[in-house]
């Protein structure tokens, strides 16, 4: 079993839809959770990070963490064509330099 599982998609939605992206993990030592957005042939860009269970909101983006279920989500409201990208979840223990694990990424297309 992989430490981090992420559905690779592809996921295609119409403009304005609410998008839900998810990851599950198996290592209970993970305490820090991140979401990255990666456009084609570019480096990943950090979108959001959190280290607590519950919701964290930033504009149209909401990150949700459920540590009891080992499940994290990223919601995108009012999705735009510019949101079309691959979204990577990432997680690590606290205070470690080399234990970050990434999901394989979900490719999202928002159609106008």
């Amino acid at each position, binding site marked *: 079993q992989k430490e*981090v599982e*992420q559905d*690779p998609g592809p996921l295609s939605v119409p403009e304005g839809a609410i998008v839900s992206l998810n990851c599950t993990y198996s290592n209970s030592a993970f305490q*820090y959770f*991140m979401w*990255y957005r990666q456009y084609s*042939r*570019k*480096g*990943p*860009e*950090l979108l959001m*990070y959190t280290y607590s269970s519950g919701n964290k909101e930033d504009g149209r983006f909401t990150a949700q963490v459920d540590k009891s279920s080992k499940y994290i989500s990223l919601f995108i409201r009012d999705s735009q064509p510019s949101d079309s990208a691959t979204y*990577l979840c*990432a997680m*690590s223990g*606290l*205070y*470690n*330099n*080399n234990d*970050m694990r*990434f*999901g*394989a*990424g979900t490719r999202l297309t928002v159609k106008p």
Partner: protein
Amino acid sequence: SQTIHQWPATLVQPVGSPLSLECTVEGTSNPNLYWYRQAAGRGLQLLFYSVGIGQISSEVPQNLSASRPQDRQFILSSKKLLLSDSGFYLCAWSAWTGTNEQYFGPGTRLTVT
């Protein structure tokens, strides 16, 4: 603000040739530095990380090596490239204070022919 640079952006090299990819960070001191390789559909694989000048840890046995000659410079090298070294190479940095967010450079796409 902090900026991370990588070059070259694209590289095509024959099998058996040497490799040198460079990464530099601006706007921060004593960063932790990382080299990753990204394969299609397989996520990011950590190759090397460094917490200071001359301090390199290798995560995966391979045909590659890394060096950190200056505080904000990280170099990925190979003496002889293999076909399997093709991929998208990403450099990243995080703050030395221990916060875990990593910030990535634009990447180098390497094709070994």
